[in-house]
């Protein structure tokens, strides 16, 4: 259930528009019989792909750090990597 928890944590973070799908390889994990897009879970690493909302509420490293803090309890010993796939321009 880690991929799903990571996606929920990321989407709940301010500045995240949606989950990214990966640019070269699809970023997804099969979990509980369905595909969870935007999170790639491996035994060593948790990779979270996001699309950030523009204008940004705070710089990208701050948004990424918030996501990392949110998923840290579920990620355990895994190294967490946040990848910004795109920026989505939204009306202010």
């Amino acid at each position, binding site marked *: 259930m880690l991929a799903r928890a990571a996606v929920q944590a990321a989407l709940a973070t301010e500045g995240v528009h949606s989950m*990214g799908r990966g*640019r*070269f390889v699809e970023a997804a994990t099969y979990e509980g019989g369905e595909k969870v897009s935007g999170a790639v879970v491996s035994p060593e690493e948790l990779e979270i792909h996001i699309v950030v909302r523009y204008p*940004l509420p705070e*710089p*990208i*490293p*701050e948004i*990424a*750090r918030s996501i*990392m803090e949110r998923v840290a309890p579920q990620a355990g010993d895994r*190294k*967490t*990597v*946040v*990848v*910004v*796939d*795109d*920026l989505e321009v939204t009306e202010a």
Partner: protein
Amino acid sequence: MRVFNRIVLILLFAGLFVLGVYTVVYSFNLFGYDLEDLPRALGVSGFYHGLETFVENVESGNLSVLTVITLVVIALLGLILLIAELKPPAPRRVRVQRGIYVSRGAVADEVVAAAERTPGVLGTSARVKARRRPGAQVNLEARVRRGEDTSAIQSNLRRLVREHLAQRGVPVSKLNVKLVEADPRRTKTRVQ
């Protein structure tokens, strides 16, 4: 490098396959050939004799200057290819900090957005390269009207792009700006 590797491997494996099949067929002596006749059967007698002469010259230490130069060039080429092969591939994403990455496309979009707000710039295109250390290498090409003050536009562009990316927390390790004079009728923006 990957395409080059594939071509080399395809040729190598095709050669090994043909040679293997040919040797097996040959070993059964189906066509009455001797091993000594193999170069003639393959139609490479000239090459074989040249090779024989070359090996004899190597053994007797009687190589011409041109041959030595050719061998050195081949060795250097091999060394360059070996180093290129051993080098780890360039990263696909721009490293912002430890564990935080931004795709090259997203950085390029931001660069273009900043550059197109610069006064005097009629259109831009950006290419972003990721490096192993944090920061992106940005190659920006901006189109300007003929007769504009290019040095002022260039310094403005550099400042605005760096500021824009810094606000977003994306470090720039190298920013190359190239200005190209263009006809405003053929650019995205006519007046800036």
